[in-house]
């Protein structure tokens, strides 16, 4: 019976056809709007209709922005680039968790969070990462240059340029290369800072220190690296780590807390060896 009715309406193809009518989700969005760094900012409520469960979270925001543009309103600014979960550009606080980790059921980036995780009629709170070190540029877009400056302070190795050396000339134990690779999956999105109750960037810094410190090529600068990166992290105005673990839970790449322990191990060793921050 049902099949007959559906078949009939499909054949009729009228405007009242249930198959053609909007069938997606209707959502209420409460979005942080802030005109610029000096603006105080506020939550503004919007409605979006006909959201497909197959859309990504950012596509849902695209739908909202198209609606706003058509209404001559200012579209909501948010950062995004690859939309494949690998560049680290996107990052929103969704219903109080970084990248919507509380909704996703697993590690994710905002672009890889799909609307099927939400229900019709849901209200979704969307905020930017909040930290002194991440000043808001506009709306949901923040300046994460502080993370770049931490990298500049020590997240590198010095290597001669020219022909690439034979890859097998320096052996790396499998265990170390695996652990270094796990740390190197950090995409620098800043979710660790956003999720941390202390707004600490410890997991980010620890991932970089671990990634380079586990390799033979990272040894010459190992002591200077950790003290300089920690000094820069403090200088940027990040909070201190109290090992709560929100960072690792929010991390789209699942960077583990062991990296923080490894950083602390390196830091204590470096301080004992007399390493001091550059400035």
């Amino acid at each position, binding site marked *: 019976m049902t099949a007959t009715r559906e078949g009939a309406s499909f054949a009729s193809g009228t405007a009242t056809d249930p198959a053609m009518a909007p069938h997606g989700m209707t959502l209420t969005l409460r979005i942080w709007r802030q005109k610029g760094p000096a603006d105080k900012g506020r939550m503004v409520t919007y409605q979006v209709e006909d959201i497909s469960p197959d859309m990504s979270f950012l596509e849902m925001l695209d739908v909202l922005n198209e609606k706003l543009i058509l209404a001559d309103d200012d579209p909501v600014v948010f950062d995004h680039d690859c939309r494949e979960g690998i560049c680290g550009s996107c990052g929103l*606080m969704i219903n109080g968790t970084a990248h919507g980790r509380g909704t996703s059921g697993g590690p994710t980036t905002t672009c890889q969070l799909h609307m099927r995780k939400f229900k019709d009629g849901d209200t979704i709170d969307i905020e930017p990462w909040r930290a002194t070190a991440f000043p808001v540029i506009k709306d949901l877009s923040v300046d994460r240059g502080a993370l770049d400056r931490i990298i500049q302070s020590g997240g590198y190795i010095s290597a001669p340029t020219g022909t690439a050396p034979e890859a097998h000339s320096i052996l790396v134990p499998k265990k170390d290369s695996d652990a270094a690779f796990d740390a190197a999956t950090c995409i620098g999105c800043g979710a660790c800072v956003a999720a941390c109750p202390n707004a600490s960037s410890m997991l980010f810094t620890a991932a970089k220190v671990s990634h380079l410190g586990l390799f033979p090529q990272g040894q010459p600068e190992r002591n200077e690296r950790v003290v300089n990166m920690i000094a820069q992290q403090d200088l940027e105005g990040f909070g201190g780590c109290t*090992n709560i673990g929100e960072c690792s*839970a*929010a991390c789209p790449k699942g960077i583990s807390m*062991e990296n923080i*322990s490894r950083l602390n191990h390196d830091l204590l060793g470096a301080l004992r060896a007399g390493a001091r921050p550059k400035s």
Partner: protein
Amino acid sequence: MAVSGIILVLYLIAHMIGNLKVFAGRESFNGYSEWIRTIGEPAVPAQTTLTIIRIVLLVAVIAHIWAAIALWRQAKRARPNGYVTKKAVAQSYASRTMRWGGVIVGLFVIYHILDLTMGVANPEGPSGTPYDRLVAGFSNPLITAVYVIALILLGMHLRHGIWSATQTLGQSNKRREKTVNLFALVFSVVLIGGFLIVPFSVLFGLVG
């Protein structure tokens, strides 16, 4: 934070074991209290060892509070304007209550010293023996309740503190993480259980 915490935990272990002397009777408990004050005699004057212990503890407590305030202030500066909506994904109740729980435990320690060490806040008063003060205090359900609440908070403080100290001193890794957390939990339960057994024994008339 970690080093001062370890010193305080070591003291707590000794304190808990010493408390259990109460089950050996009034003379044994009072004798133990007397012994603490006379360790090293006659080579050193009375109270020397105790004074040294007290100075070490005081320094550790001050360092612990100083580091905690520094971290607290740094966190406030790092995010002066909080989120409109913020939900925890991983944090435990223990880690969430480190700061205010720590403040409450600190206030409790002051009360505890006034109550059982100095006796001024004790129903028996400063003139009684340590054993009398203990029994007089814990016979009052209200005083016992204060101790129970403070000790449970202290247990949670240690549960997160032991794990956090292991991380801070760089001694944790993925393989050890489970063991460290399990140890922190078991240690806290055993230690706090050892402390709690004394007031409950007095309250239920097993010691008196």
